[in-house]
């Protein structure tokens, strides 16, 4: 099987994201909104903010990531393009994986690139920024994977949005703990090897299992 169908889908996803530029950028705007609200809410003291910075950047990244998840599969279900994935002999697993990749590029990558700016806003020590970006790289990938799975599971319900947030919460807690923890220990001068190692292990586990589960969930919901 050639890669033409998969590439075509990938290009279409990116083209659609560009068409809806406003919708695609909304999570980023939300991220900034949260980051601005924190100093306004807890006070602008650099010491306090520096201590909270890793966790706050992470929480903001996760919350903004949740916004984008509704649009992962629902539009395709609604205009009839989702069921076409099973017509023909392209592997649905490959299609789903490409969807995850394009989603991450649109929602996760910008967050990672914005991270240094966010770190600056919350007085995170500069030497912790690379770890922040690396942990966000792993974390946003995991958010896309778990979020995609939960989006697929809730596709058959009416109000996907709130239910989606409730369902993804247990899955994302370990990611948050290890991701924010990695940045925090590096900010304190220690090594984040253990945290990043566990995050990577979690990512590998998710990469192997989540796409398969997502395909099953999608199949159930197109009936």
């Amino acid at each position, binding site marked *: *099987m*050639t890669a*033409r*169908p998969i*590439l*075509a*889908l990938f290009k*279409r996803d990116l*083209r*659609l994201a560009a*068409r*809806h530029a406003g919708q695609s950028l909304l999570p980023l705007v939300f991220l900034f909104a949260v980051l601005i609200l924190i100093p306004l809410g807890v006070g602008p003291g650099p010491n306090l903010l520096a201590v909270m910075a890793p966790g706050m950047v992470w929480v903001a990244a996760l919350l903004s990531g949740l916004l984008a998840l509704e649009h992962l599969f629902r539009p395709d279900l609604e*205009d*009839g*393009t989702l*069921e*076409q994935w*099973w*017509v*023909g*002999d*392209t592997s649905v697993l490959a299609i789903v994986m490409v969807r995850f990749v394009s989603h991450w590029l649109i929602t996760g990558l910008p967050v990672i690139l914005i991270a240094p700016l966010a770190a600056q806003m919350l007085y995170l020590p500069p030497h912790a920024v690379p770890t922040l970006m690396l942990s966000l790289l792993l974390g946003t990938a995991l958010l896309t994977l778990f979020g995609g799975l939960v989006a697929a599971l809730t596709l058959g319900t009416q109000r996907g949005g709130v239910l989606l947030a409730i369902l993804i919460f247990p899955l994302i807690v370990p990611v948050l703990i290890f991701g924010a923890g990695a940045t925090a220990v590096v900010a304190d001068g220690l090594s984040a090897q253990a945290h990043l190692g566990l995050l990577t292990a979690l990512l590998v586990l998710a990469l192997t299992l989540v796409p398969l589960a997502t395909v099953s969930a999608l*199949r159930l919901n*197109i*009936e």
Partner: protein
Amino acid sequence: MQTLIEAHALGFKRAGRLIFTPTTLTLHAGQCVVVSGANGSGKTTFLRLLAGILKPAAGAIERRAGVNFVGHQAAFKADLSCLENLCFQHEFYAGRDAGKLLVPAISAIEALSQVGLIKLMRRRAGHLSAGQKKRLGLAGLLVTQAPVWLLDEPYASLDESGAQQVDRLIDQHLRHGGGVVLSTHRRQPVLSVPALSCPIAAAAEAET
């Protein structure tokens, strides 16, 4: 005559109950089969089973050639132009088994001309009328040229001239060695070769 699809006693369950009595269908090259039945009898479900979208709960199906399915909603992205949608379709279904079809897939521009949408090629698909969307769906068939066409209510939203165009395209496809299975509510296809009938009956209240 080449067999394109063999479906034996195909059935589907919803909430644990069979929707329609298991139905058998064999499609040969050059044939058109009309799936008929009352509203809600399961015509769309049957077509989706043939397309491979649904997994049968009863019976078996063997597809010997590539399949194209056009459902109630034309599967297009509302924010892309007609041309972009068709180009995507062409790429997505590329490499599919064209079997013994005598005519390869045509270009998006040509397909748009054939269905009369060439003036709207840059218009966003979401801004088309219902009839125009149906015609765009037909253009999608021409661009991908799978041997088997599965059409769910292709005459809906079309006026008589639009319906005649559908018949012309089906005739052309059958002449080239393809097969068509379509469901329709009122209007029957008017073709040069008489169409076969495949009635779908709602399942009797099966009891345990």
